[in-house]
């Protein structure tokens, strides 16, 4: 069983924060083999929008063959998805990318903004001690769902949730330690985490983003600069959709 494109029925959808939606899809073939940190491509039903919308997998319910996606409305594609109800279906392709690799004894999971969702399935699956750091702009979402899996620390730009500032501020404030970091979030956050991890000798797996066309490594749209020569093109360009989206801090330059 490998990645496929299929029609997934919508099971339910809820707006869990302002313009942030939680979408449960029935996608047995994908759910069966998906791992935390992988993503799926969602396709618009409107013929004027042909490129896929990559969305990380937030939860995998293998028993029922369901997938949960959590996404923010930022443009026409996500706007379209946000009105889907259980009467609808959506074209979906996956699972895509490498996903997170379990390692270490004491993990720090860091999610920033719409980078929080993929950390949830990881939190569920990781079998070790976990600190979970979640950074918000000014509205909290999903955080109580992390509670069962580890101690949850929070930060917010506005200061209304947890520590005022970034996830790095929360890490310092609470002196959070670990031997492996898993992170997903905006580029400045990933940069700060990379720097922190590299200078403290901690391994860090970070999940990257780039515009995508094929989602499977064929088109070379989604590359990021890599320290080592990449296997595919021999030019220090790793494909986020294929070698990523999860890379080690230091492996990619950004």
């Amino acid at each position, binding site marked *: 069983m*490998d*990645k*496929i*494109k299929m029609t997934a029925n919508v099971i339910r959808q809820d707006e869990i924060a302002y313009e942030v939606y939680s979408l449960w899809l029935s996608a047995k073939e994908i759910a069966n083999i998906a791992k935390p940190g992988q993503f799926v491509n969602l*396709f618009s039903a409107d*013929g*004027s*929008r*042909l*490129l*896929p919308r990559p969305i990380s997998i937030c939860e995998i319910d293998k028993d029922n063959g369901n997938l949960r996606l959590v996404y923010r409305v930022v443009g026409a594609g996500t706007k379209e998805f946000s009105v889907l109800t259980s009467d609808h279906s959506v074209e979906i*392709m996956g699972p895509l990318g490498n996903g997170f690799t379990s390692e270490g004894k004491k993990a720090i999971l860091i999610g920033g903004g719409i980078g929080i969702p993929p950390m949830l399935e990881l939190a569920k699956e990781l079998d070790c001690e976990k600190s979970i750091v979640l950074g918000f702009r000014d509205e909290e979402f999903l955080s109580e769902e992390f509670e069962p899996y580890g101690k949850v620390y929070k930060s917010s730009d506005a200061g209304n949730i947890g520590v005022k500032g970034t996830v790095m501020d929360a890490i310092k404030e609470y002196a959070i330690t670990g031997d492996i970091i898993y992170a997903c979030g905006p580029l400045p956050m990933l940069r700060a985490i990379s720097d922190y991890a590299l200078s403290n000798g901690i391994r860090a797996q970070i999940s990257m983003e*780039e*515009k*995508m*066309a*094929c*989602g*499977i*490594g*064929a*088109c*070379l*749209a*989604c*590359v*990021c600069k890599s320290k080592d020569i990449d296997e*595919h*093109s*021999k*030019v*220090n*360009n790793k494909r986020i959709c*294929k070698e990523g989206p999860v890379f080690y801090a230091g492996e990619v330059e950004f």
Partner: protein
Amino acid sequence: MNTKVSIAGVEFKNPITVASGTFGSGMEYNDFVDLSLLGAVTTKGVANIPWAGNPTPRIAETYGGMMNAIGLQNPGIDTFCERDIPFLKTKDTKIIVNVCGKSESDYVEVVERLADEPVDLLEINVSCPNVKEGGIAFGQDPKALYDITKAVKAKAKQPIIMKLSPNVTDITVMAKAAEEAGADALSLINTLTGMKIDVKKRTFAVANKTAGVSGPAIKPIAVRMVYQVANAVKLPIIGMGGVATAEDALEFIMAGATAVAVGTANFHNPYVTTEIIKGIEDYMAENKINDINELIGCVK
């Protein structure tokens, strides 16, 4: 029912191939389609040495299509010969290697290197709008096109397909230049040069500023050019630009294309090539067409 077509003496089991750069060397799409079902696989452009390509973002969505400025990232001909050709040889399909370069000698080097390789056709990309040197520069000037065609043809062991740029005033002038210089076939169209501005960020959507537009949006322009070229030269044509359905492919064939390449549509539907092959067969059955060759250029 016969779906076999022939491009410069190379027989395809059906007229469907893929457009260079949208399918890698087929490895990734092998998870979705049996490559042996395709008439031919056309590879991503390969140069004499590895190319890093352009900065990101390299693509943007456009209305009914997309634009790309990948910048011909590729591993160079050595890796390509070691890895990609052996892979493709395990499939029962024809191999078209797309060749790119910055100078005449770059092209010639790749072509010479491929002389003893088991590839069927060479597609010479003189129409990439996304690289500063080479590429489109050869494709917008009939004299330059004539010269590069001649130079490549002199060294090529396989038949050569010159891939034409649509960013010209009169595509037939270019087609004739390639024909006179000895090209064995033509493929068209490459992408149309476009631009997208992100009005929220007040910046270019693609780092390269300009990028090549592809997808269904450009199909009418592609069909027109294939028709014009088919009626201006004798060479067989691989038509492309926005093909996403069997009807689209048939449009190109009726306009005069012998084979048809599917590009951007793969990104939307990785099964699309085989669906198109099936759709063409259905059309032939319904319309009692015994031989696909009857349809080539049938609309005048």
